[in-house]
């Protein structure tokens, strides 16, 4: 089968709204978006906190975060696996091979990215913003909100990068999700499986959808941050 043929078949699968395909796509979105939402809630405050500290006081944590940004997904998956497998400390919860486990693994992948990029974004003028808000009588909550708002473009960038990482990864969800049809199968694990079975058109179709969805999400985020229009100081 030629590449062109594959692309053609892939599009016909998309256009006929193949129910199998739909289920896989929706689960992918559900898992990755939830993982990124939780990772944002954890990573942005952590990054903001670190970004407001003098750099020399956060040297170790920074290096740790940068290292974890490059954590291989299979390693993240393995760690979560050991935590939630029947013998693990969280084994009683019975989370192995569930979408929840996949969210946990992708959360672990996204947090360091979102925290580190937020930290870098806030470091540039977060201290100044914090002091200015304080001189104007802001309380802690308003100060925190102002610092985050003033770094919104960097934070948007951090979240988009985190999403890009988790939606494209396959190693972690494969290990903790198990690629069970109709239950934990997502786009990337399906691509691996279908490629292995020689169903190249389906694999390619999934790859295309993955790209289109990423493009759609990024367009949406780009729209919300005003196209980066007033990124100037």
């Amino acid at each position, binding site marked *: 089968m030629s590449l062109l043929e594959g692309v053609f078949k892939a599009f016909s699968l998309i256009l006929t709204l193949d129910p199998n395909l739909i289920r896989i796509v929706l689960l992918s979105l559900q898992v990755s978006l939830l993982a990124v939402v939780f990772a944002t809630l954890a990573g942005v405050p952590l990054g903001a906190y670190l970004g407001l500290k003098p750099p020399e006081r956060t040297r170790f944590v920074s290096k740790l975060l940068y290292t974890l940004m490059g954590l291989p997904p299979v390693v993240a998956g393995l760690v979560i696996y050991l935590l939630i497998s029947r013998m693990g400390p969280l084994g009683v919860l019975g989370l192995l091979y569930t979408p929840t486990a996949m969210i946990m693994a992708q959360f672990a992948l996204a947090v360091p990215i979102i925290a580190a990029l937020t930290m870098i974004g806030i470091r540039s003028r977060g201290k100044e913003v914090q002091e200015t808000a304080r001189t104007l009588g802001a309380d802690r909550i308003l100060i925190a909100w102002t610092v985050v*708002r003033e770094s919104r473009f960097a934070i948007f960038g951090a979240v988009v990068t985190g999403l890009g990482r988790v939606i494209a990864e396959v190693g972690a969800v494969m290990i903790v999700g198990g690629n069970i049809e109709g239950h934990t199968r997502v786009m990337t694990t399906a691509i691996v499986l279908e490629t292995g079975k020689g169903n190249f058109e389906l694999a390619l179709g999934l790859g295309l959808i993955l790209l289109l969805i990423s493009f759609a999400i990024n367009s949406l985020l780009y729209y919300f941050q005003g196209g980066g229009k007033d990124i100037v100081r």
Partner: protein
Amino acid sequence: MSGKEIILEVKNLSKVYEKEVLHIDQLSIRRGRIYGIIGPSGAGKSTLLRLVNMLEPPTGGEVYFQGRPISINVNGRADAARREMTLVFQKPLLFGTSVEENVAFGLKARRFAREEIRERVDILLGKVGLREFARRHAATLSGGEAQRVALARAVAFEPALLLLDEPTANLDPSNVELIERLIMDLNRETAMTIIIVTHNIFQARRIAQEVIFMHEGRIIEAGETEKVFTSPEDPRTRAFVEGRMVY
């Protein structure tokens, strides 16, 4: 209002970084007056303002604002004091929002009613000659315009004490005049106490009623402006006001 009442008192205040950069035995600021802090670069002028505004903790000593020590934040007391004073930096930062949002910031932080906020913002932008800039994004302003917005933002909530760190450095003469006039108007109309740090001894002489001369972290001389300028007691003060001190 003006007269004998002490609004701010500093006792044995010190700040040590690698070495001691500030050491003030005693300083009293009376309500309703304009004070000029002058002195060579590195004298500790900005450090003093930052300690008074509690942006940094002192290494030793205490600041009393309206009779109360402000380093002790029992029941948010220091936070309450902070709300009654403000500091404008030499290079003020404007938030990445509109000009009017910037001016409204301190009013919103104090939960003023929306109508009141709109009214005050409008009046203040008029005073600094930027009414037609209300909707402009702050990032598009020139240096002088930004400085005026920062000043409007600081005085919008009528602080009892206004600390200004070189508010007119790097500005052209017309902007300098506008800001000086605004400072003097505020002081006359609302009895706002103002402490202004300036490199410019002529400016201190023009607008300050009292002058404080600092050198190497210490207050060398303080008193009525004319007296300090015409008959300084310390030779270092004399050298500085006569423009002979090299810095």
